[in-house]
């Protein structure tokens, strides 16, 4: 039982999410949940590298887009099936992560420099995919509507939601396991003090590389889900800065370096957005303004994120210490 104890919150949230497709029947709510969980999944990828490892990326769109494009090309140009496309997209995200990580970490880039490099990679991918024939150029790629489980397209939104929920729970369990593992401890150690971690014998380069590889894979999986759900991607959608910002926000508002943070953050942010939209009336954009104001207040008064609210103690000291430290963002 004690071995299972750390998994209880994940299992609890997992059960709640798993029950959602059974009780939610409105397609509006289903659509909301699917899109929010896709963002939550991408944010969990970011959280693994940024929250646990302290390596803030501003360009997770690179992984999201690579996953979506690889899977789309896999299906449309190579004529292969959607499920292997899902795996291929996820692996491509991991390879992209490893490549960017290898180049950036070998050069010793940290903090804001690492953030800028990731941003640059995402922008380069956006420009390339916008002009390349293989990615459909600026016209993007439109996956043909072929409803069927073998094409990872489902007739009803609740089945797709069930698939996304299953994947989210799987990733949450993986992150919880990593958190308790040696690799997780090493990640946190290098976030807190890289030099000290190195002095203690942690292979900092290898740990960072593993983290960015995994992070890229998870975010790329979210990218593939976006493709399979909306069936249309272009460079500004999947490599756009909006996704990099969305994942950052979800993880930070939910709780940086926590297992449930990204999911809670994404649900809270999108839920708030929808709520304000309903209450705000007809003036266009007023809901976005209110949303922004609430966001500022939330970030100002919840340094430990939403998950921090449920802790008995305030956010751990070391988490707060990381922010002002030199070289970190």
């Amino acid at each position: 039982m004690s071995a299972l104890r750390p998994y209880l919150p994940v299992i609890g949230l997992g059960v709640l999410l798993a029950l959602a497709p059974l009780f939610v029947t409105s397609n509006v709510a289903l659509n909301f949940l699917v899109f929010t969980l896709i963002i939550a999944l991408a944010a969990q990828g970011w959280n693994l590298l940024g929250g646990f490892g302290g390596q803030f990326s501003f360009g997770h769109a690179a992984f999201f887009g690579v996953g979506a494009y690889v899977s789309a090309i896999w299906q449309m140009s190579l004529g292969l099936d959607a499920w292997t496309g899902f795996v291929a997209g996820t692996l491509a995200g991991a390879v992209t992560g490893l490549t960017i990580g290898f180049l950036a970490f070998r050069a010793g880039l940290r903090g804001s420099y690492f953030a800028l490099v990731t941003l640059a990679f995402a922008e380069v991918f956006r420009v390339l995919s916008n002009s390349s024939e293989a990615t459909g150029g600026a016209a993007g790629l439109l996956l043909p509507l072929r409803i069927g489980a073998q094409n990872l397209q489902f007739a009803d939104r609740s089945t797709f939601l069930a698939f996304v929920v299953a994947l989210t729970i799987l990733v949450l369990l993986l992150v919880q396991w990593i958190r308790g593992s040696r690799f997780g401890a090493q990640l946190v150690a290098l976030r807190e003090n890289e030099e000290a971690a190195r002095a203690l014998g942690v292979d900092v380069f290898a740990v960072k590389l593993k983290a960015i590889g995994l992070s890229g894979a998870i975010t790329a999986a979210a990218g593939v889900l976006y493709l399979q759900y909306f069936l249309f991607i272009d460079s500004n959608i999947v490599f756009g800065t909006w996704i990099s910002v969305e994942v950052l926000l979800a993880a930070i508002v939910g709780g940086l370096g926590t297992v449930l943070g990204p999911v809670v953050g994404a649900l809270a942010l999108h839920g708030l957005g929808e709520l304000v939209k309903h209450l705000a009336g007809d003036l266009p954009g007023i809901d976005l303004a209110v949303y922004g104001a609430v966001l500022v207040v939330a970030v100002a008064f919840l340094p430990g994120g939403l998950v921090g609210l449920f802790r008995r103690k305030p956010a751990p000291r070391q988490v707060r210490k990381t922010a002002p430290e030199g070289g970190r963002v």
Partner: protein
Amino acid sequence: MTKLHDQISRRTVLGGGAALAATLAMPGVLRAQEPKSVKIGILQPVTGNLAQDGELGRTGAEYAIKAVNDAGGIPSLGGATLEMVFGDARSTPEGGTAEVERMQSEGVAGIVGGFASPICLASSQAAARYDLPYVVDVGVSDKIVQRDLSNTFRFGPGFGTCSKTAIENLVKLNEAAGKPARTVVLVHEDGLFGSGLAKLMATELPKYGFEIFETIAHPTPARDMSNVALRIRSLKPDLIIPSSYYGETVLLMRTLYQQRVRPMGYYSVLNGAASNMRFVKEFPEIANLDMDCNHWHDPRKEEAIQLKKAVEDAGGLWAYNIPLNYSCVKLLADAIDRAGSVEPKAINEALAASTFEGHVMPYGPTKFDKGQNTGAAPVSLQVQDETIKVIYPEEFADAKPVFPISG
């Protein structure tokens, strides 16, 4: 308890029973009546990058709904009035999809709008899940009507038709003036429409004897066009062809004007500014004699003139989005009327068989082939005397082209 029981008399029970029976029978009675109003979804991006276009589209739709209702609503449904369910697509495909879901849950009979191609692609696909009729207002990507979706209809012309007509009209314009223009610089936004158009122009124009000096891409939004303007000044082309959205085109034209670049003409295609009265009003000198091949209302139609007047009298600015959305809503209303029902399948069939003439565009009766209105075509326009005139096709042009404007 006993007391309460005593108070309920046999007469009360009978009366209550009759009332209950009447209440239960009510839904049947209601069903038998014609609906008092028919909800239609108007999907436009009114926040985000495309907010200006979205607002124009909404204006067109609102005028159409008012026109239909004032004319007695939907006759076959007992004069049921149209009721707008508005959705903000937030300038993103997922925003559009979310609004389609909401509109469907609110029971709309069909949806009009989308504006940008990515929004139209995603939203019409979301509507296709319910076979919900979707009338695309602007979205020019030809992929929109190449998916065999039985619910998607595009009233306006697609990219292929627009670029073909634009090139034909340009060649005609140049030949009529004695072929003064021979060299061209293409400036385009790097998204779906700008890149595609520039590529097509770069391939097609040399076939008609034009030399393309350079093709210059810029992102949207762009904050500075100085380098682009300087490059154009050094190249000294006869013609400049910009394919960009409103803000970037205005910026480019202003910068070129400041840099004293005076080509023989500006000829844009599906441009956001050259056929927008806001540009003409705010920068009359710069906009003067700019040409654009774009969607436009039919200046021969009285209803179009009245609509333009009504919009301008209300303090609004006239742009193509207004007559297009006005016509699209009327087209959907006509289909609902002919279907005599709000069932999606019946409306889709009515749209597919539509020969609607009551619109304000220069297209003739609608005729849909795989969802595309085959009669739809753009027109060539020129800013003259601080207003926008049609210069081609000659059949209904309300002005003669002024070309070349310098040199």
